């Protein structure tokens, strides 16, 4: 413990140097900007600024890139809440309740809760990163394809809790999303599936075009032609801050989101996008007023926003402790380290204590900077809602197009977003939920790959899922959940039938 404090002292002495502070600040600002802009996510931001870091020292470079990464998680909630457009894929869940809160006049509160939840999650997860990095990293490595499969299967179960309304319709949308995720090159056999000769579809449709299209463009299509345009809200300063009740309602979700996000973030793979989905489902399940979800439940904003921030710290665990990229973003950061002559690997913490602890310390500082940046900006951003919708929506379309194009420089992505926008519009009119589609599209390729890899590892034996401890536990947990739900569902059914005779008796009385 003493050693940790000493190291932290070393770290702060590095992090509080003016140059390092400056680059952390630049990273945070760019990250917020990148997060606010729809479609352009942290990966695009980091990739674009990677060349700019070549002239910097290793510490400055990694501090700036990390700032972009977690800064984007702060900014991503802004457009989600104000305009129902996901700032990046992880903010999709915030669109649902955050926008509903905005429509009720609580935009400022939603933005503030998102910012503060992100801050708490960011800071707590950095503490966890600092204290637990090496042992956690070792645990995370033991997640192989069978464990992934079990985990993702649990993630699919989560889908069942994501939306209200008809379970059958949500499931159908989830399956639709899963099918959309099948488009592209099959990693196990090399076949191009459903790509019709378009090379750009080789990697699939892409989360960003799907999310921006289904939520952003579909929202514009549904709202622009309305006879009564959305009210121009003129929020007053008092209304910008959350009420006491809203604070109380967000405390537990922030806590749960932090823990959940961090745990999911540690696991190597792009699973950290799922953290916000899982958090939303958990909050909905645990809430005493589940019917509020979708209409502006505070927990529906606090939980997912905290989860996606702490997932970013979780993603750093395998990267720093083992030198292993846990996803595309840490991979780019590892490359940045390599270019600067720092060889990432298990010895990084020992060989480069100034770099590691300086990085950790600058994350504390960065989170503070972001809070200071984002809270006052709530007042500025909320004024976006004053712009008449007839001027706002062309601008929204423009930002969506640029955001989607910026990811790969490909017009095909923009086409995909537009088609998904049209689809999202039609589905909304017909009363189908669109959020499960996004989750399905993310999960499908991962689940299929994990299953087939596991079978490749075990030469076709399905026993591998049960014989390995972690995946066996996860599957048992999932089975228990399903059973519990079946029991309660049946129980409710029995109750209902028993109640009818009572009611009839009551009426006769």
């Amino acid at each position, binding site marked *: 413990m003493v050693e940790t404090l000493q190291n932290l002292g070393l770290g702060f002495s590095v992090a509080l140097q003016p140059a390092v502070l400056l680059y952390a600040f630049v990273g945070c600002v760019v990250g917020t900007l990148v997060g606010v802009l729809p479609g352009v996510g942290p990966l695009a931001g*980091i*990739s*674009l600024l*990677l*060349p700019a870091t*070549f002239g910097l020292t290793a510490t400055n470079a990694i501090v700036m890139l990390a700032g972009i990464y977690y800064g984007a998680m702060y900014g991503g909630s802004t457009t989600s809440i104000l305009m129902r457009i996901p700032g990046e894929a992880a903010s999709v869940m915030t669109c649902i309740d955050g926008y509903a809160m905005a429509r009720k006049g609580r935009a400022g509160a939603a933005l503030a809760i998102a910012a503060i939840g992100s801050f708490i999650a960011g800071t707590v997860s950095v503490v966890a990163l600092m204290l637990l990095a090496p042992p956690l990293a070792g645990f995370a*490595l*033991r*997640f*192989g*394809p069978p464990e992934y499969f079990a985990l993702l299967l649990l993630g699919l179960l989560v889908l069942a809790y994501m939306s209200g309304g008809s379970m059958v319709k949500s499931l159908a949308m989830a399956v639709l999303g899963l099918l959309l995720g099948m488009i592209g*090159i099959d*990693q*196990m*056999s*090399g*076949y*191009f599936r459903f790509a019709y*000769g378009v*090379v*750009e579809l*080789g*990697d699939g449709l892409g989360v960003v075009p799907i999310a921006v299209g289904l939520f952003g463009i579909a929202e514009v299509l549904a709202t622009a032609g309305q006879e009564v345009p959305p009210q121009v809200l003129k929020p007053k300063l008092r209304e910008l801050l959350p009420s006491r009740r809203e604070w109380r309602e967000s405390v537990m979700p922030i806590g749960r989101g932090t823990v959940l996000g961090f745990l999911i973030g540690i696991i*190597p*793979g792009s699973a950290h996008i799922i953290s916000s989905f899982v958090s939303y489902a958990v909050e909905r399940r645990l809430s005493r007023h589940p019917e509020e979800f979708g209409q502006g439940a505070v927990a529906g904003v606090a939980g997912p926003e905290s989860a996606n921030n702490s997932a970013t710290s979780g993603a750093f665990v*395998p990267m720093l402790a*083992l*030198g*292993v*990229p*846990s996803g*595309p973003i840490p*991979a*780019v*950061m*590892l*490359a*940045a380290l*390599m*270019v*600067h*002559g720092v*060889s*990432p*690997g*298990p*010895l990084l913490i020992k060989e480069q204590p100034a770099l590691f602890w300086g990085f950790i310390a600058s994350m504390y500082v960065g989170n503070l900077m972001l809070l200071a940046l984002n809270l006052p900006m709530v007042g500025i951003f909320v004024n976006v809602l004053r712009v008449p919708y007839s001027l706002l929506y062309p601008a929204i379309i423009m930002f969506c197009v640029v955001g989607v194009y910026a990811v*790969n*420089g*490909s017009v095909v992505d923009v086409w995909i977003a537009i088609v998904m926008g049209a689809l999202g519009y039609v589905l909304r009119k017909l009363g189908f939920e669109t959020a499960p589609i996004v989750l399905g599209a993310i999960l499908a390729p991962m689940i299929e*790959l994990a299953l087939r*890899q596991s079978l*490749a*590892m075990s*030469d076709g034996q399905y026993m591998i899922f049960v014989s390995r401890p972690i995946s066996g536990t996860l599957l048992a947990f999932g089975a228990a959940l399903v059973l519990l739900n079946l029991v309660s569902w049946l129980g409710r059914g029995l109750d209902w039938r028993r109640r009818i005779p009572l009611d009839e008796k009551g009426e006769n009385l």
Partner: protein
Amino acid sequence: MKRLALTGLLALTVASSAAAQDAYPSRPISLVVPFPPGGVADLTARPVATAMEKVLKQPVGVVNKTGAAGAVGMQFVATSKPDGYTLLLALSSISIIPEADKLFGRPPAFTVDQFAPVALISADPTILVVRAESPWKTAKEFIEDAKKRPGQISYSSSGIYGTLHMAMELLSSAAGIKLRHVPYAGAGPALTALLGGHVDALASGPAVVLPQIKAGKLRALAAWGDKRVAALPEVPTFKELGYPEAEFYIWAGLFAPRGTPEPVLAKLREAARVAVGDPEFKTAMDKLETPVTFKQGAEFQKFFDADAQRLAEGVRKVGRIEQK
């Protein structure tokens, strides 16, 4: 008066055509990298671009056009104007992708003869690595064990028909062994899988595994190169061990679309040659632990053709796996 005008016009035409000829390059050049930022191709391309800028006196910008394991970017350059302003930095997968397309009966995204090779920049030999706790201390032990238990030893790769997969396939056919292939989505996850104990072996470029070897987590058994890897002098090559057909490099080379005029190509080759000798370039490559192997012109063509043939053979041998 008329004669003056005519002469003037003639002089202007001659001057402008001459100017057009040695006016290359007269505007910025794009170096297309068909892989995402931070990967081997991208990190090699950037020092190349910076060094060539100094020679060509025009900005050389790196453009990432990713997708389909490189096919998107490669197709883009194959179909762009052959005027020398769009270049490609490709990895050895350039020879694999059209073969894979042929295998599946698809119209190929591009073909190898849509490119004019300019120069080879680097040729990373691939290394066979296993975990430090594994029972095999030498490549011989590994191969013998594989012969005893066909299909039981697993290895990861960056994707089916990818560079890391083909390297292992070449070894398998050279040594007559059968291994179990578990494809992953990229070199990073493949390495993670090995470290986590989910597979037994991996063929990898040296840069990412050297820190792990130094830290004692992984052991290098052999290399697929012509010569031993400079950073691992005690690791033999498969050639030395008696498997000369197991030769594989993850090389990075500069290409231009076919039809680029010869003087432009000559200028590019010269620029590449000078760029590779640039000290800043050398330092950058050293940091990446990537040895520079420069070949150009006919030498590169020979290397490229031999490599392409080897890989095409390999892909054909692998065939379509679900037909096995």
